[in-house]
């Protein structure tokens, strides 16, 4: 054990000085959602299947059934069930994980993206 610790004295520490240095998450990392409004039909399967109750359907005039989901990120457990169950692949989880905020309002994710952009 003595030799091991003396060796480590000369090596670079393994600590990553976040936020000055960052580690890239893996490709499949489950972070914040992206929602494609032009693919959504408003079926509500994501709201039904979400284990944490983090998806609420609200009114919208851009989808077939006149509803679209908004994501309550403070309840979300990032399990990807919504992405899997969506029949139109309108929800996708990205790698963005720096989601801390000072107010609950900022944690309601309701941006609408179109899949052409």
């Amino acid at each position: 054990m003595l030799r091991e610790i003396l060796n480590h004295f000369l090596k670079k520490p393994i600590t990553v000085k976040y936020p000055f240095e960052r580690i890239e998450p893996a490709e499949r990392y489950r972070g914040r959602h992206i929602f494609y409004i032009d693919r959504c039909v408003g079926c509500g399967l994501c709201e039904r299947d979400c284990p944490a109750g983090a998806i609420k359907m609200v009114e919208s005039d851009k989808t077939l059934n006149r509803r679209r989901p908004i994501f309550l990120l403070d309840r979300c457990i990032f399990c990807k069930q919504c992405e899997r169950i969506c029949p139109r692949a309108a929800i996708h989880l990205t790698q963005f994980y720096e989601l801390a905020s000072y107010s609950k309002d900022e944690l309601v994710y309701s941006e609408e993206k179109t899949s052409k952009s």
Partner: protein
Amino acid sequence: MRMGGDGELADPIISLIQILIFPGLIFLFILGLIFEWIDRKAFARFQNRIGPLYTGPRGFLQPLADFIKLLTKEDVTPRYVDKFLFNLLPGIAPVLPVFASFYLPLNGYPILHPFEGDLILIITLMTIYTITVFMAGWVSTNRFSSIGAARAILQFLGFEIPMFISLASVAIDSASLSITYIADHQPIPYILLQPLGFIIFLIALQAELERVPFDIPEAESEIVAGWLTEYSGPKLAFFRLSNNLMLVFGAGLTTAIFLGGGSGPILPPIIWYLIKMVFVVILSTILRTIFARLRIDQVLSGAWRYLIPLAILQLILAKFLAVLVM
């Protein structure tokens, strides 16, 4: 205080500066914080981590920041403690190692005039420190503190004797009980002449300072914080300060007795003294890194079964050496 100085009036002022600033209170305080930083940084680097980083350059001011932070925290006193002792003990605890350090020849000559037997005075001060620790735990009327206090005294029973015997073997070899005399008259440092004594003294010092593998009185994962449990805010700040000052004092004593004090070519004696003290601190940190904590009965049985016979063996060898020299 130096005898026979230049002028009658210059002497008290020089002594006052020595006591208060260098190498007295402020110097020892700063040295305590620096040694805590060295200890924490080395401990972290051995474990492949960084240690303190942001306060000051490379985290240099972190011990000072911790001290100031603790001073500003709320001071909670439990209802049934003995208020007089509870408030007095954190004040006594740092004073003892500072007083003992006044007898160390930091700048070649100690602040207080050395005399034959100041080694024994220093040992007595360390004993009183352990008793202070015990009283601090006992007076807190907390289950965990009483266990910690009892363990502190038990550990002391194990280690006081080997420490004293190893110091006595050095004293016999140099035929003096004055630290300054021992430090100045070491043509070959005693670490080479009495390596067994050095090892025993280092182990006993680790127990005196309550560092792993002997940090049983304040074992965090077993009895919360041992004898320190009920102290908070400024009182905790002063106990931690006393811990650092004991480290300074322990390193200083080891340097004076075994490493030849401030002797060395070219550089002034204070610089050599500091370099040797840092060496002792790093040795103590290495011991802290590679061992797990022992149990109190194992510590006592190990001390009485192995350390004391080895220390007595060292004493006999030292007497032999002294006779040979004469």
